[in-house]
């Protein structure tokens, strides 16, 4: 793993900061939830206490009656926000609840009531496919026709009976049976009570509008099938029970509104959980920017709320654990989901007690979003700061790592190329003037290279020095032998003398080989350049080698046209000598040495190839180094790895270079000298 990657990983550990922030934010959120719960509960309790002091304003005229009983004809009157059109459809009532079935006696009917400020609305669906029209001047007691009876208790307590019937569907007015002065009952129109009769495939709808001034606290509805005689509904014969109209207490909404702040909804319910008053709304003005900015990471940190119950509420009543508990006399609070999208909602309910009796409850609802906003605000700051910090840390780590790895890379490259392909040593390392560990490493490299260079220099000069220093003692020995021979030795001693001379000769050839490179370096310094024909030189030299090495077969290939060259021909011949000697040494007994001179663009290429064993690839570039020897066989000639070094020296003197390669066919080696045409 690269240093850059390592440091990057280390820098990424700063991501633990935002994680810790999330944990903290969750703690914070649950604390806030608890405190919101208790404060909302306290508020609910306070409101309940305040309301219990003025039961009249809360419960209206309803008094402390028995529980709401649909079967007895009790009816909840929904508050309507807009005045509906009398058309037999209740779409414009804007109510989510369906009409309720009435107790049936051979006829199915469903009923719903609503009110505006001035009118009470009745909506009735009757399943009676057969329409029995009203005859003219009908009497409900004697004639059989489809009709809806309406009995209402007037504000003064008197009961009044009306019926709706029509000869043809459309707008109708209520009728009442009036006994005229002549003692005959007949139907009279009550124009203040208007209705619309809509005939459908299943039966008919009746939508009626009654001024509230006509209605007291009770009302009964009954639908009667004229032909079949079936009935559905309630007949309010007894005014002491049933038919009660339950509805929001007038003025309670305004009273409630004084208790609550924005973002809170207060509902007052009676013991039947029916709504008596409602104020406030759950939506509060929110910082939209904050919300959109904060939501994207909410998914990472939001607590799981899917186990919370969904808010259950109907237009006429409330449900839920808190409501049940409050009506049982215990204040309680609960977190709800307003809808499946998990918007949270806090509901707190407190009982309204009058005396020791629970008469209803105050339910306060508050959006949990307020809390989220708080949390989001804190988290957004935290997140932005920690992310900024992390990004900064990562960037810095990456930068430092890049810098370090660049520097190390530079050092590595310098170390790799410190020993050049031609065996020279570069002593200066990059970074060595820096004060840190990498600088120290570079200086260490420099010291190492300096030592290596000293040793190499010494080794390189050793040959010349040895051949020089050994020459004098060698001369002493040889001249002594010369003298000894001249003085005359006995015949039996002559053998020793001969052997001593042979030893001397060998020593001398060794010394000569050792000093060869320094002699060539010397003559390169003295060399003079002349113009000559390289092709002729090679031809002539090869002719000489054929005489000099009669056992070797040498093939020559030179260009036909003149190869003019400016250089030192003697040196080039010496170079060729070394190449040929090398080739002869490695060529097999039956092999052929190929000498080929070609001209390529601005260069001459002189290639000498033999069929000797291939050279290991890692040796190829080192062959031309001084004192580098790679020989498998052993012969009687001393080899110090100077021959090819001399080739290189002479090639470089001419501005060229020497290359060793294996033949592409793998059965030999080629040594090529590239000389620029000057």
């Amino acid at each position: 793993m690269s240093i850059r990657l390592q440091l990057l990983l280390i820098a990424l550990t700063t991501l633990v900061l935002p994680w810790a922030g999330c944990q903290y934010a969750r703690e914070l959120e649950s604390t806030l939830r608890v405190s919101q719960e208790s404060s909302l509960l306290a508020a609910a309790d306070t409101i309940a206490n305040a309301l219990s002091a003025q039961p009249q304003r809360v419960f209206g005229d309803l008094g402390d009656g028995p529980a709401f009983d649909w079967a007895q004809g009790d009816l909840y009157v929904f508050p309507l926000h807009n005045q509906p059109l009398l058309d037999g459809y209740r779409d414009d009532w804007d109510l989510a609840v369906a009409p309720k079935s009435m107790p049936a006696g051979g006829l199915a009917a469903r009923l719903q009531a609503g009110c505006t400020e001035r009118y009470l609305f009745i909506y009735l669906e009757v399943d009676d496919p057969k329409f029995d029209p009203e005859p003219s001047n009908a009497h409900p007691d004697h004639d059989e026709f489809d009709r809806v009876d309406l009995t209402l208790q007037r504000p003064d307590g008197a009961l009044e009976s009306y019926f709706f019937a029509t000869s043809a569907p459309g707008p109708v007015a209520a009728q009442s049976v009036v006994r005229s002065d002549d003692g005959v009952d007949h139907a009279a129109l009550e124009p203040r009570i208007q209705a619309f009769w809509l005939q459908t495939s299943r039966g008919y709808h009746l939508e009626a509008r009654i001024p509230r001034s006509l209605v007291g606290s009770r009302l009964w509805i009954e639908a009667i099938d004229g032909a079949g005689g079936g009935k559905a509904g309630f007949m309010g014969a007894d005014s002491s029970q049933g038919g009660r109209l339950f509805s929001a207490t007038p003025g309670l909404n305004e009273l409630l509104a004084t208790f609550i702040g924005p973002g809170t909804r207060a509902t007052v319910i009676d013991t039947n959980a029916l709504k008596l008053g409602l104020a406030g709304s759950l939506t509060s003005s929110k910082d939209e920017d904050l919300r959109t900015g904060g939501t994207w990471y909410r998914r990472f940190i939001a607590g799981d709320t899917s186990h919370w119950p969904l808010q259950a509420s109907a237009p006429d009543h409330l449900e839920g654990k808190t409501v049940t508990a409050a009506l049982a006399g215990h204040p309680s609070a609960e977190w709800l989901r307003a809808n499946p999208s998990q918007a949270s909602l806090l509901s707190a309910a407190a009982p309204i007690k009058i005396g020791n009796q629970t008469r209803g409850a105050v339910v306060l609802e508050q959006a949990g979003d307020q809390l989220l906003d708080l949390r989001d605000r804190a988290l957004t700051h935290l997140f932005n700061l920690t992310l900024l910090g992390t990004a900064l840390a990562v960037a810095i780590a990456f930068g430092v790592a890049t810098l370090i790895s660049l520097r190390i890379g530079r050092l590595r490259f310098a170390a790799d190329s410190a020993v050049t392909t031609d065996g020279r040593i570069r002593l200066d390392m990059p970074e060595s003037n820096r004060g840190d560990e990498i600088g120290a490493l570079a200086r260490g490299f420099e010291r190492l290279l300096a030592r290596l260079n000293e040793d190499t220099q010494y080794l390189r000069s050793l040959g010349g020095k040895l051949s020089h220093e050994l020459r004098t003692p060698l001369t002493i020995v040889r001249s002594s032998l010369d003298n000894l021979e001249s003085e005359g030795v006995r015949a039996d001693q002559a053998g020793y003398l001969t052997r001593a001379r042979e030893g001397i000769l060998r020593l001398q050839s060794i010394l000569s080989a050792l000093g060869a490179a320094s002699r060539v370096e010397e003559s390169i310094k003295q060399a003079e350049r002349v113009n000559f024909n390289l092709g002729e030189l090679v031809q002539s030299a090869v002719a000489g080698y054929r005489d000099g090495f009669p056992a070797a077969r040498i093939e020559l290939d030179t260009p036909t046209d003149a190869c003019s060259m400016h250089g030192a021909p003697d040196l080039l011949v010496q170079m060729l000598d070394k190449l040929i000697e090398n080739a002869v040494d490695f060529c097999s007994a039956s092999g052929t040495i190929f000498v080929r001179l070609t001209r390529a663009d601005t260069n001459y290429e002189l290639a000498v190839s033999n069929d000797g064993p291939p050279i290991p690839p890692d040796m190829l570039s080192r062959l031309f180094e001084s004192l580098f020897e790679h020989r498998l066989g052993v012969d009687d000639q001393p080899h110090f790895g100077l021959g090819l070094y001399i080739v290189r020296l002479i090639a470089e003197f001419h501005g060229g270079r020497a290359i060793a390669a294996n033949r592409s066919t793998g059965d030999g080696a080629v040594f090529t000298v590239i000389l620029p045409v000057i």
Partner: protein
Amino acid sequence: MGYDRGMRKQIAIVEDEPALRENYAAALARQGYQVKTYGNRRSAMQAFNIHLPDLAIIDVSLEDEAEGGFDLCRDLRALSAEVPIIFLTARDSELDAVSGLRLGADDFLTKDVSLPHLAARVAALFRRIDALRRPDNAAQIVRRGALSIDGEKMQTAWNGVPVTLSLTEFWIVHALARNPGHVKNRQQLMDAANVVLDDNTITSHVKRVRRKFQQVDPGFDAIQTVYGMGYRWVE
């Protein structure tokens, strides 16, 4: 070989290496020469001031003087223009050879010259001295075009202008010019010059010979290199 008429030739050997000095002295004494040996420049110069030797063999580096031999040669030449001087050196630097010969030495040898070869040279130099003292003997002169060689006096001339060669150089020219057109390889030239040299040294000898002739005649081109084989004289 080196017999003189009347008195024995005196040879001075200036060499700081005692063993070598004694070996040279013994070999030359065996040839009948009177040999004086000196270990450094001062003692040699003191002796030369009193009595000039007939021939001096001088080592280039003398004790603490790396080039004391050159100074000695210069001083000796100042005393006498004729005394043959042979330089001996352990170094085979061409620069040394050039400066030594420029100072008026008659020959420049590396120390690995064999004693018989050294003796042959000494004899040849004495013979030349003798020949120089005799009246001209035209019969000894060989002519090859513009070149004339006096084998006795070991002198050469190009177009009648004398070209001063060292003994080794003279023998090389002599060997080449005797059979013009024939290639002489390096071994043959070494044999002719009574010397054992490596190829480089032969090359630089030939180069030096060419340069000397070119000083007389810039168009000189009589010694041809046959690469890989040797040299030949062309007329």
